[in-house]
């Protein structure tokens, strides 16, 4: 027996291929949407992995530093180091901002870290790590910055001395690493006018500028302009210690919030990107319905165009099963063409997306199964029509 579906597809291949390409673009969009979601999750995991921390210590009653803002005093880490089970602890700051390069600016997450401590970019693709304690920067390649570029963050210029990759915020913004002191200043320091204003106001305050108490005013002014805050302390625990235990000790004794790696992932994946994930999920549902409608419509019209042939096939003794199989196979064929086109375009255009698009083979397999199920479902309408065709109509009136 020959494949009736195959012959029909070959006979009207241009219609099939064009419809398949249209469907394929839709499937490509669907796969990309799934890839965007996977990319977001992967970005979040990369953020956690690359920070090199076992525990994140943040301001009490916050879910910082990524999902909420958090502010800690920068000497907290010393007290943490005194706790058992903690091997390293380091201050970090995170600030999402526009970083200027020449006339353009790039949206980045500026990370302040202490060289050699947790929070340092884990590997470089070019250049070197920061060695001076001021005005050097390591940038993620996605910023588009080059080695030797001079970039401007707030009031200071920084030289790009190293490039790293896959270092992005949970929002997908590439990171720029600068020394902690500079970052604290960038985040907490007021502008010059505000400093002058404040200084004048303090000086004019008689309780602060008392005659007979030398040095008081200077001490107050110095403390007003100092910036001793950070957003989080990254903690590495000693081998063989339970992160949950250490985290609960920190919460208990230090009046701070502490999250383990697992808790942090929970915050990022199921809280921070939850709305985006639902948004994407909604989109996937709509795309699935649209694809099903397209396949159903195409297969239905193609079947209506073959009513006469179907009546003849039935009259000469073709089984209903064979005719239903023909229509089903055509729908599946359309789905196959669509899937191949969709997978190809999704792979081709994934690198062009500004944010990371992660096309997981598992998603492709699931996508393929869903496409085939949708096509099979969509063909039922046409099959119903075909089975109702009366072979007597082939003989005519």
């Amino acid at each position: 027996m020959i494949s009736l579906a195959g012959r029909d597809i070959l006979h009207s291949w241009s219609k099939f291929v064009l419809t398949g390409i249209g469907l394929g673009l839709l499937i490509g969009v669907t796969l990309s949407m799934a890839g965007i979601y996977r990319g977001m999750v992967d970005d979040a995991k990369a953020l956690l992995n690359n920070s090199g921390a076992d525990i994140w210590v943040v301001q009490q009653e916050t879910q910082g530093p990524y999902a909420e803002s958090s502010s800690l005093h920068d000497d907290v880490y010393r007290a943490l180091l005194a706790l058992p089970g903690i091997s390293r602890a380091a201050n970090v700051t995170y600030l999402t901002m526009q970083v200027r390069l020449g006339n353009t600016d790039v949206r980045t997450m500026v990370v302040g870290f202490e060289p050699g401590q947790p929070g340092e970019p884990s590997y470089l693709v070019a250049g070197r790590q920061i060695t001076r304690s001021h005005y050097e920067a390591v940038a993620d390649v996605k910023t588009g910055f080059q080695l030797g570029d001079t970039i401007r963050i707030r009031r200071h210029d920084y030289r790009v001395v190293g490039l790293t990759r896959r270092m992005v915020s949970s929002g997908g913004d590439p990171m720029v690493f600068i020394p902690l002191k500079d970052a604290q200043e960038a985040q907490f320091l007021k502008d010059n006018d505000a400093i002058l204003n404040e200084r004048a106001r303090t000086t004019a305050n008689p309780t602060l500028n008392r005659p007979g108490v030398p040095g008081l005013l200077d001490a107050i002014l110095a403390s007003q302009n100092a910036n001793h805050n950070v957003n989080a302390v990254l903690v590495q625990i000693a081998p063989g210690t339970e992160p949950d235990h250490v985290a609960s000790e920190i919460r208990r004794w230090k009046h701070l919030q502490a999250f383990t790696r697992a808790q942090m992932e929970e915050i990022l994946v199921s809280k921070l990107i939850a709305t985006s994930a639902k948004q994407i999920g909604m989109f996937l549902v709509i795309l699935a319905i649209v694809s099903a409608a397209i396949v159903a419509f195409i297969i239905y019209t193609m079947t209506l165009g073959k009513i006469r042939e179907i009546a003849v096939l039935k009259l000469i003794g073709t089984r209903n099963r064979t005719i239903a199989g023909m229509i089903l196979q055509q729908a599946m064929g359309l789905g196959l063409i669509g899937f191949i086109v969709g997978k190809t375009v999704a792979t081709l255009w994934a690198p062009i997306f500004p944010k990371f698009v992660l096309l997981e083979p598992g998603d492709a397999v699931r996508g393929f199964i869903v496409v085939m199920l949708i096509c099979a479902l969509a063909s039922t309408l046409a099959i119903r029509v075909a089975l109702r065709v009366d072979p007597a109509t082939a003989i005519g009136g």
Partner: protein
Amino acid sequence: MKGFGIHIEGLRKRYGEGDTAVDALKDVNMTVAPGEVVGLIGPSGSGKSTLLKCLGAVIEPTAGRMILGDEVIFEDGWKIADLRALRRDRIGFVFQAPYLIPFLDVTDNVALLPMLAGKPNGEARKRANELLDALDVGHRAKANPSQLSGGEQQRVAIARALANQPPVILADEPTAPLDSERALSVVRILNDMARQFRTAIIVVTHDEKIIPTFKRIYHIRDGKTFEERGLGAA
């Protein structure tokens, strides 16, 4: 072929029920011997297509008897379980338009029937090509039906009707779209095939050009048949 080609006795067909019922066939009696071609003519609405549909087992007669070969296929109800197989193996259909399957080439349009009957593809195609050669369209075997002339398409349709060597062929106005030369050639082919394969053939027609070629003609009027000797050579 043993027994009758086609034998019909007291066949009746009523469409619908009650007030709207139409008695399309009231009393049809007909015999076609193996190897014989008979004409069936009658005015519009007289029941010609209804008769072919009953014989073709796509509608169920209301009463009467139909015999194909030596087997009673209908006697106040179908006597055969698989009507689909009956149509596939024992009845060939030729229509006014060829109704070839547009996505199969000429050979496969003909080979489809033996394939449906379970013959291997190679054997089915061999048989198809022999028939196409016999009908003088063998040179177009690899073409698409849409690339054939009307007469060629009709000959392919006849080859298809013959593909499973059915004892019976039912042709509904097979020459309507053809000019007189081609119409006569189709009738000649049907006669040749009837003789060669011992097939009983009924040709429904309005076509004045071919009516004189039949040896026997059945007239049908108001659902009843009357036999008449035709002008065709004895």
